[in-house]
């Protein structure tokens, strides 16, 4: 290892989980600082300015959701929630509170690393290195030239379809909640009209997916939102019924 890897702050009260995270992250070149409680975690976030925070929702001294909101209030680094609470409502709440991603326990190291990489990439883009072309499989979205092509052929999208696709593409690999998408595409007054979103997603899929009933590019997170896939191969762990 020539240069020290990105610093990850782990806020997690279970010692076995911290042990697993420390071992797997350091073996993949990350540096790790650990906190077993919210107070200590906040202090370390301030003093060490980590590049990513892994946050467990079930901490002994604070509610993880509240901590997410608090950290998001001043910190810009990505927050990935790791939680045993697998209900969709919990995921949505954490994501809407400002978490960048949500991993349900148990999860494998590959899935964790993939989410960290996505989070780091988006953080980098947010700092200015904006990616203007997103490409996956046959689909190419050129955000700068406002051009979408499929297998080299230009696609004709309606304004809403275009806004929907570019919003998801510019967050490739990351799940966006229904509320976040509705807010961005339709405006704050439409945050509850998920059927708008579902109908337009179906429409968009019919234009970009080879088989819209078997989407490869835009995946659905049931009860949570949608994710623009950043890799085509099946995500090994996601196939399991982990809720």
């Amino acid at each position, binding site marked *: 290892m020539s240069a020290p890897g990105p610093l990850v702050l782990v806020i997690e009260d279970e010692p076995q989980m911290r042990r697993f995270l420390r071992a797997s992250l350091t073996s993949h070149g990350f540096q790790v600082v650990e906190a077993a409680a919210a107070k200590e975690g906040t202090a370390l976030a301030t003093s060490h300015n980590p590049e990513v925070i892994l946050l467990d929702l079930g901490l002994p001294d604070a509610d993880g959701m509240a901590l997410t909101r608090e950290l998001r209030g001043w910190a810009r680094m990505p927050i990935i929630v790791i939680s045993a609470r*697998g209900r*969709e409502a919990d995921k949505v709440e954490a994501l809407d509170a400002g978490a960048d991603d949500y991993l349900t326990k*148990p999860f*494998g190291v590959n899935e964790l690393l993939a989410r960290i990489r996505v989070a780091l990439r988006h953080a980098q883009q947010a700092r200015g290195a904006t990616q203007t072309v997103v490409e996956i499989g046959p689909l190419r979205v050129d955000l700068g030239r406002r051009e979408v092509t499929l297998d080299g052929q230009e696609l*004709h*999208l*309606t*304004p*809403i379809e*275009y806004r929907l696709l570019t919003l998801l593409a510019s967050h490739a690999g990351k799940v966006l909640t229904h509320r976040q998408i509705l807010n961005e595409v339709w405006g704050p007054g439409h945050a509850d009209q*998920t*059927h*708008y979103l*579902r*109908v*337009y*997603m*179906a429409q968009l*899929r*019919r234009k970009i997916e080879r*088989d*819209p*009933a*078997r*989407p490869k590019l835009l*995946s*659905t*997170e*049931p*009860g949570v939102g949608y994710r623009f896939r950043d890799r085509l191969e*099946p*995500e*090994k762990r*996601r*196939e*399991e*019924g*982990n*809720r």
Partner: protein
Amino acid sequence: MWSRYLATVALVALATATGVLLRGHLAPPDLVMLYLLVVCIIATQFGRGPSLLACALSVPAFDYFFVPPFHTFVVADERYLLTFATLFVVGLLVSALTSRVRTQEREATEREKRTAAAELRARTEEMRSSLLSAVSHDLRTPLAAITGAATTLREAHRDISDAQRAELADTICEEAERLERFVVNLLEMTRLQAGALEVKREWVPLEELVGSALTRLEARLEGRPVHAPLPADLPLISVDPVLLEQVFFNLLDNAAKHTPPTTPVEISARVADRQLVIEVSDRGPGLPPGAESRVFEKFYRVAPGGARGAGLGLAICRGIVEAHGGTITARTRPEGGAAFRIALPLTGEAPVVPAELPA
């Protein structure tokens, strides 16, 4: 209690009255038979006490009304004494016999009731213990594999080859996943049974639910032709998207588990009679005859002792579909393979999504 004795007196009086009316047509032995008949009826209907009373009343009544000289208790012909004795003894025997039969009958009913209760208790107990043993088996088996593989890795990692190490690590991962799936299903089942299931309905296109399940199962279905020719004009349905997606996940997961790895899986849908009818079918071995409805029972497995699955997936499907007011059925298709059909009522008016001008 007393009413039975009163009824007895009334019946003996009735027999006597009948005898008096028919006196011209009946010989005394026939009249004796009439009294015996009354004793029999009373013994079977009212029991021992009233039948003894009937015996005791019959003899003097017979004497008084039908034995010359009439209307006195005096007996002119001694042969009638034998008739009295016979009437009395036969009456006693009949009453004793019938009351014994009645007692036995009552005891038999009691016994039956007790046995039925005991049997029910035993069956419930048996079900509970087989449920527990199924659960504990399904929890212990993956745990045993994990413990075994992990301890081997810890104790003997120097003595085994890289390939063996990799194999043991794979075992740990796979078995942990299996354990997780089982726990998730067990929780889901408990939630369904506790009636704690909240159906949060939203208007959703079927395609999205099927698509999401297929995405989650992408790796498991790899290399398998999947046909999902869903008509583009299907109406939006009002369902809980998370729950219904789980139904498709379980059905497709089952198909992946129970059919050869390159055989096709199909999903079709149509509207019929204000219902959305969805069918998930495969080309595997189909269901054993008689298992078509049992597959939806919890902990039922098509192949007992089969390593795959705990027999909860389809029970969960049924619970979810029924919570939506729908039905789910299974059959073996005549051309081979299993087919699961879901019928969901199309209720309410789907909201209109305003159209947009093309760019």
